[in-house]
């Protein structure tokens, strides 16, 4: 399939497709552990400031993407407080790199992922977790052996939402890492460019179709996985 696609698209477009896939995968994969932890904390703990955390997580959803991108730039840019620390202490630069695009996509997708996982956690019967506790499992083990397997469908749902969002993310990405072909020019950025010039609709449509196909493939895969998991859990 890749071969056919690559032939149909121009090399620059093909580059954008590959970059988008990489960015979305990393964004999803790296934010997943944080997403699970955050969802768990929000679902099961009570602490002062919980609503602040909750609000913070939702921020990227509420604010216009461009504003989120601008804030990311302020914080994680080379001159930004976090960006400077990252660069000087760890040698990590995200500004103007594909990693920055992944960060932007991950941040934008985070609230979607957390909500889905949180909903799944809240649906787990605490009585099962209690039972695991009486059998000697510490809270961490209870989570790993009971909660986690039971919320797998929710994790799959959250990841696919996040992946789809990451594939489509535009505003925050271009504001944070701008549009550098081969570095940060993901599909949506390429599509946007094409739409700005009269007569660019054809190329835009081609790319849009590709991004939809990729996201649909991921969606189908996730449905399949979720159904397998659900079947195992329900035992039928």
């Amino acid at each position: 399939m890749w071969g056919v696609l690559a032939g149909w698209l121009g090399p620059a477009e093909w580059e954008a497709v590959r970059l988008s896939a990489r960015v979305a995968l990393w964004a999803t994969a790296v934010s997943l552990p944080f997403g699970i932890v955050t969802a768990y904390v929000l679902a099961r703990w009570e602490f002062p400031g919980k609503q602040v955390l909750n609000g913070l997580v939702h921020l990227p959803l509420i604010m216009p993407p461009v504003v989120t991108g601008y804030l990311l730039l302020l914080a994680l840019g080379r001159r930004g407080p976090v960006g400077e620390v990252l660069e000087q202490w760890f040698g990590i630069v995200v500004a103007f790199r594909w990693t920055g695009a992944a960060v932007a996509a991950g941040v934008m997708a985070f609230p979607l992922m957390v909500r889905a996982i949180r909903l799944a956690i809240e649906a787990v019967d605490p009585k099962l977790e209690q039972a695991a506790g009486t059998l000697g499992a510490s809270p961490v083990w209870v989570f790993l052996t009971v909660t986690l397997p039971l919320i797998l469908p929710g994790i799959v749902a959250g990841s696919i939402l996040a992946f789809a969002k990451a594939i489509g993310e535009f505003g925050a990405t271009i504001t944070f890492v701008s549009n550098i072909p081969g570095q940060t020019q993901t599909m949506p950025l390429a599509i946007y460019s094409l739409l700005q010039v009269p007569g660019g609709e054809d190329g835009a449509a081609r790319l849009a179709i590709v991004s939809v196909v990729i996201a649909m493939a991921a969606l189908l895969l996730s449905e399949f996985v979720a159904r397998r998991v659900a079947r195992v859990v329900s035992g039928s």
Partner: protein
Amino acid sequence: AAGDVLVFAASSLTTALDRVGAAWSAETGHVAVMSYAGSSAHARQIQQGAPADIFISASTDWMDALEVSGDLRADTRRDILGNRLVLIAHGGDVPPVTLDETLDLVGLLEGGQLSMALVEAVPAGIYGRQALRALGLWDIVAPHVAQSYNVRSALAFVALGEAPLGIVYATDAAVEDAVTVIATFPQDSHAPIILPAAITAQSTSPEALSFLEFLISPTARTIWADHGFDVPG
């Protein structure tokens, strides 16, 4: 807000046009409502029957497209404004440079990026690429260009110091203290930067023509010039 005239205008006109609109209101007692967005969006919306009376485009190509599709009222197109393209640097006291093929643009970047608007989509980016090509600088600098989806965003990268240099309109550079204009592109290095205006074909507003005329009135010209625009003779 129900107004007498609905104007679809390029985002880069935001403040200046508001002032012009206010002056027009003061003079005529009528109200103009402005919608600022990218010209591509506006043009498509007009093609889809948007109730705009006047369209002010950031460049000529979308105006041409509307002309071809018959969405403009005949003989109402005017070139109302021009602009200049400048090279800016981050900081207050950066020495000026001369723009010719000998300029070591990459060296000036010191490993950083040249901030521009989208070079294939946004007028400022398109003009910028033309100019760099004409000067024979494009091929060397292209890998170092970071493109933003509008000029303001390109300006912000330089203002924040994320990018050492950038190419923006003179009008944008003028209002940002954190950047210095280190060169102005020769007018002949790129297609003329012209912002045309016209009345749409479906406009029924009796005040549309009055507003269009006002855009090139002496009052308006003063305001335009105030904001750094070129006002064609």
